[in-house]
């Protein structure tokens, strides 16, 4: 406060600004008012003009201020003067009220989380809250102390660990305070608030805090999970999410790039949906542009009665090639094609009809893929944004943001190397324009809080510029709205080269999926499952494995990297594959079935039987099950779905460890009769299966009960 005042005399201000200044200073320091009120004695009512008198006045005024400030400093030296100012009392009062409110808010927050007892608790988050409080209490001198709590892989170091002490010591050192991190760790432990989950802590090494969870607490959470089912962690507010994915081009084939986008986008949407968000899945298809003029012109020639009789176009790809050939070779045709574009853009019904016919052919093809993969998506192609593009251009022009460059209108965004081409020299629009319009529409009309674009990483720069432009125009504030490009690497063949057919053509998606079905069936037959399963069960298993494997293979790799497409690998039932997980899942499901325990009995047991966690493997499995919410939270932040795959794989292997060393059902060796059922272990099986099922659901994989 005083610093700002001390600097004040250097601020240049004129007559108009002066009264406001006076007001501010008066508010801050009531006792300086008397002096301020007669500053500028000879300036009042006098026009600026004579620089000498002007500066003299200013100088005099500054002299005055120096005097008054010295007086203030003197008076501030006497602590009695400090205690009596009204302003101070007001601030103290305000501080008391703010503290009171903070307390109320904290309690409300607790109440809020306690109110959703059905939801799963994020243990890591809860530990962060507990340790965060302890850390703040231990080191009040640090403004933003680092908070690091992570699960521990090695049981001997406890269940979780808090590693903040070292970083805090570093920060203190930077401030000139030398403290041993171990001491800080001890302080943190001492300051731990009362909580429901920490059994004990121990300090290890330079200052690691090993955290041991209470068994009763973990057991209770497992019981909750069994009773309530897998529920998402509580959601602060129901936000609206737009996921832009798949987005193939009309009249062109969907390729493996679209496959990745479709699988990843669908899984992201499922994740958001599970967590309770309001998700809009948008298919930003390429359904507008000059190529449609060419296609319509060709359509008119080939099927003159297309308006009355639906043209039997089977192979749109071939149709496209034909028209393209004519377009390149025939000047007249080219001219006509351009005329068609104009007519289409002016929405002439006959042309719109032709356009629709062509789009429909493509749509049918796309839908086949979507049906196989179980994809729900709303088609909202580039054509949807036609009018809006004009508005965007208008807005940009009005704001003077566009620069003319050889007939083009460019939008330069500071900090971005490439400008956006908003209008081409021929007056047409570009992807830049349509993406700007789409983003604007999603922010203002869809009122989205989160917008995610799932496309290949090659478009990363483009989106970066588009987002920066949108922020420049002021459409959104990144602190409030999350707009993100979730890019992914290219799909490679087993030869690590671009994924192609043997003949060098791009692989048709439907062909690929059909091959998947075939190979899945081969695998099942190889394992002689066709002898165990009914024909319906077999088909179900075939589809589940085929499509599940394609999706899982994609999702289980970090999306940012390129990935090698290999049916052999993805259908392998060992390792981190869908095949393995699907088998593991059906096996868990079969445990209860084979012990003749039905669902009702399990549900009842969940309410009456405590989940014991005395065996190491039980304890390990129990904790692993409960990590589900923190895994989802992590994905929510980085949109990397392979974390979920890794987790499910870890869960399945942890389960196997458990199952190998802990009897769930004991049977008579000879008769095969059930001798004893360890119900709490059955419950652990059940909880594992429930989490796996939910995990599959988020990945878009359909598990089967038997395979």
């Amino acid at each position, binding site marked *: 406060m005083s610093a700002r005042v001390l600097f004040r005399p250097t601020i240049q201000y004129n007559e108009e600004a002066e009264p406001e200044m006076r007001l501010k200073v008066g508010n801050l320091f009531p006792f300086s008012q008397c002096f301020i009120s007669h500053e500028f004695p000879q300036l009042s009512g006098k026009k600026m003009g004579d620089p000498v008198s002007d500066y003299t006045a200013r100088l005099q005024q500054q002299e005055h201020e120096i005097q008054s400030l010295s007086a203030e400093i003197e008076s501030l030296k006497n602590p009695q003067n400090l205690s009596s100012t009204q302003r101070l009392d007001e601030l103290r009062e305000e501080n008391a*009220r*703010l503290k*009171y*409110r903070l*307390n*109320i*808010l904290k309690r*409300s927050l607790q109440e809020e989380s306690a109110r959703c007892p059905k939801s799963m608790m994020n243990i890591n988050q809860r530990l962060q809250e507990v340790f965060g409080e302890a850390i703040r209490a231990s080191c009040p001198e640090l403004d933003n102390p680092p908070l690091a709590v992570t699960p521990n892989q090695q049981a001997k170091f406890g269940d979780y660990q808090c590693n903040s002490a070292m970083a805090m010591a570093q920060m203190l050192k930077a401030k000139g305070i030398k403290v041993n991190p171990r001491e800080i760790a001890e302080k943190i432990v001492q300051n731990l608030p009362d909580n429901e989950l920490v059994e004990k802590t121990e300090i290890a090494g330079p200052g690691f805090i090993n955290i041991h969870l209470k068994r009763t607490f973990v057991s209770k959470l497992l019981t909750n999970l069994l009773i309530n089912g897998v529920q998402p962690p509580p959601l602060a507010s129901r936000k609206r999410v737009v996921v832009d994915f798949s987005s193939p081009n009309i009249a062109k084939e969907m390729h493996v790039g679209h496959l990745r986008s479709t699988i990843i986008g669908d899984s992201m949407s499922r994740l958001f949906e599970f967590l309770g968000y309001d998700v809009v899945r948008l298919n930003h298809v390429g359904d507008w542009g000059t190529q449609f003029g060419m296609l319509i012109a060709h359509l008119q020639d080939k099927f003159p009665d297309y308006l009355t009789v639906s043209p039997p176009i089977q192979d749109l790809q071939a149709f496209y090639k034909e028209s393209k050939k004519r377009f390149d070779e025939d000047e007249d045709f080219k001219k006509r094609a351009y005329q068609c574009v104009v007519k289409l853009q002016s929405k002439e019904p006959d042309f719109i009809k032709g356009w629709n016919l062509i789009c429909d052919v493509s749509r049918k093809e796309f839908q086949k893929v979507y049906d196989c993969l179980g994809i729900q998506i709303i088609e909202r192609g580039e054509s949807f944004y036609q009018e809006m593009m004009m508005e965007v251009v208008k807005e940009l022009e009005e704001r003077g943001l566009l620069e003319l460059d050889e007939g083009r209108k460019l939008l330069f965004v500071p900090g971005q190397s490439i400008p956006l081409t908003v209008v081409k020299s021929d007056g047409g629009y570009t992807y830049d324009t349509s993406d700007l319009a789409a983003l604007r529409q999603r922010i203002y009309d869809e009122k989205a809080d989160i917008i995610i674009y799932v496309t290949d990483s090659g478009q990363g720069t483009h989106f970066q510029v588009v987002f920066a432009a949108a922020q420049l125009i002021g459409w959104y504030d990144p602190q409030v709205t999350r707009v993100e490009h979730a890019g992914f690497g290219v799909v490679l063949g087993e030869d690590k080269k671009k994924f192609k057919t043997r003949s060098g053509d791009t692989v048709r998606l439907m062909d690929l999926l059909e091959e998947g079905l075939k190979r899945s069936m081969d695998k099942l037959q190889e394992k002689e499952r066709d002898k165990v399963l009914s024909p319906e069960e077999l088909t179900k298993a075939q589809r589940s494995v085929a499509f599940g494997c394609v999706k899982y293979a994609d999702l289980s790799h970090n999306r940012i990297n390129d990935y090698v497409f290999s049916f052999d690998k993805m259908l392998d039932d060992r390792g981190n594959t869908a095949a393995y997980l699907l088998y593991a899942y059906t096996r868990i499901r079969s445990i209860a079935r084979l012990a003749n325990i039905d669902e009702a009995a399990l549900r009842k047991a969940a309410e009456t039987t405590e989940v014991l966690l005395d065996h190491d493997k039980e304890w390990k499995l129990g904790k692993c099950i409960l990590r589900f919410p923190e895994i989802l939270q992590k994905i929510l932040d980085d949109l990397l779905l392979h974390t979920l795959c890794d987790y499910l794989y870890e869960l399945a292997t942890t389960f196997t460890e458990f199952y190998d060393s802990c009897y769930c059902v004991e049977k008579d060796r000879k008769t095969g009769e059930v001798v004893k059922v360890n119900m709490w272990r059955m419950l652990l099986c059940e909880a594992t299966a429930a989490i796996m099922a939910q995990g599959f659901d988020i990945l878009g994989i359909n598990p089967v009960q038997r395979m």
Partner: protein
Amino acid sequence: MADCLTLFTSIGLSEQKAKETLKNDALSSVLKDAITQVHQTHGASGVDKSMGVLLYNMASRLKDTKRVAFLADSIAQRKLCTELQLTAALDFVKSHPQDPINQKAFEEACGVGVVITPEQVEDAVESVIKKHKEQLLKERYHFNMGVLMGEARSALKWADGKVIKNEVDMQVLHLLGPKTEADLEKKSKPQKSKVAENDVKVKREEEVAVNGEVSTGEVKSLMEQLRGEALKFHKAGENFKTEGYVVTPNTMALLKKHLEITGGQIRTRFPPEPNGILHIGHAKAINFNFGYAKANSGICFLRYDDTNPEKEEEKYFTAIKDMVEWLGYTPYAVTHASDNFQQLYNLAVDLIRRGHAYVCHQKGEELKGHNAPPSPWRDRPIEESLVLFERMRKGLFAEGEATLRMKMVMEDGKMDPVAYRIKYTAHHRTGDEWCIYPTYDYTHCLCDSIENITHSLCTKEFQARRSSYYWLCNALDVYCPVQWEYGRLNLTYTVVSKRKIIKLVETGVVRDWDDPRLFTLTALRRRGFPPEAINNFCARVGVTVSQTTTEPHLLESCVRDVLNDTAPRVMAVLEPLKVTITNLPESSQSDVRVPDFPANEAKGSHTVPFTRTIFIEQSDFREVLEKGYKRLTPEQPVGLRHAGFVISVQKVLKDAQGKVLELEVSCCSSDAAEKPKAFIHWVSRPLVCEVRLYERLFQHKHPEDPSEVPNGFLSDINPNSLHVISSALVDTSVKGAKVFDKFQFERVGYFSLDPDSTADKLVFNRTVTLKEDPGKI
């Protein structure tokens, strides 16, 4: 207008009466409706005079206008033919506020269709006269004929009074013959009743003497005062009989439940805000609420209206309870509005759900003054208000950013009073549990309802909030008590508002909240006012609807009345003059017996020493005899009270300035001497004490009235309001007195022992002088 006039005269009203009626809009409209209704049956000319009278009386007496058609129709159909029936009918509709009216019960209650034959009247009167025949013959026409009429009437409920009177007159005449001279002589009634009154008075005094307390008498007298207005109060469970009470479809069921809970007992409450010290005005509220309950074997709650966390301090709570108990009342239970915070919150949520309240974001400044703009959030969806109200509770708004408002217009036109506001302040009872606090408008009636209060008695200022009171209870479908307002008690020559007293204390005009010059209850106690006297005063002022401004001397006179009977006499000399009795030996000492109450020596006595040196008031001696001065002068002896001596001046000792320092006197037994013109009080071997004499604190009647005191009440302080005599002398009988013990210093006034007293030095406050005007010599 002219039409109405014709209409009214058509039913037999005189033109003047009709014009008078027209001045009363409400009455004319009801009457018009009634007549129109009757016309449907009888046509425009078919209303005869007696029907007209009934219609008029019905219209002027009926409270609940929705019954006009029903009653008019009953009159038209000649179901109701007499005043008696009309009265019964009005009673019936009053006690059956809900539809539908049970026709059969109605007709039974009103005696519809009952025909009384002349023979029946004759028989009834005959049997009554037969019963009283003996006394009639003895007292002849001095017998109260009303008794006969009354009994005959009760035998024949629906008979015409006139017919009965005629029959009684005739039969009495038949029995006694015409009146004689003696019959015409007046009975000596008034004299007789006066004797009876005196009896009562004597009896009461005896009672007082025996019990040494007056409380039984006082409650009675309070209730006598209450009789006027409070007699009209409804019985428990009959709230709907009170004028203005709002009846909803649920009222009767709620009243039934209320009766089950209370068992028909009267329940009142004294609901102070615990943010200040009680003053004389509160004494009235305490007396009214506790007194009314007590007189009706009911119960009274002491409820702290502690909804405003900022103003409350623990000390106020104990002080209030102390004062209630000091006034002699014991609360049935001590409750707090804050006890109900959770329930009040739940009710608020319910109120929102019912569409009667909404969360508003108008700023405090916007709502100030008249014609505040209506809230733009008034019609927001219920769901939205529910969520926002919860957020208010959870601390998601800053203070002033949101309030909960009730959708109703108050009497004074104020729109949508606030029910809840946000305050980030701890409450002394609920701690940090809440950050939203309910307002008076919201809390008061609901707490009354929760406690099943039958009569919610409050001062006139709250009349404007009566409709909101009823509205809220009914909007929530909870039991609705009856609110009844009485005039506030205002005292002249003082201020009672908390803010002003703080000013007086801060500026050092008075010493503290209990400075005896103030009219807070603690101040009055310190000054020595007995609680009975305050209660009597409240009773005398009475509970009227009108505002009363009362002078303090009325209160003082109540104090004298009580102290006269309760404060033992002692002798004290405020400005002493030493007197040496020369004709007594140096060592002479005798004990003088002094009755505690000279008027009633049976109540005990005490002794004081009498020695050669005594002290008298300086004012009881004058060097020069003036006409009319009856006390000591060099020429005029004076008697010493209680001592049985008369003294005569022998020598006047003076200092250099001629100021009298001491007297030398001779004494003789009063039996031996000529009866002196006066007796004066004296002390011998006295205790030195401090005496504080008080006068009014303010010079003007209404120190807060700027027209009387333009410079504000602080400019109106009476400079002589406190006079301290640090070395007065008092006789030894007060030794060992306890704080607040009261005495009459003979000839000086009533005094009470101040808490400032120490073992070494007693301090006395003069409570009141002996007489209203102490100005005479």
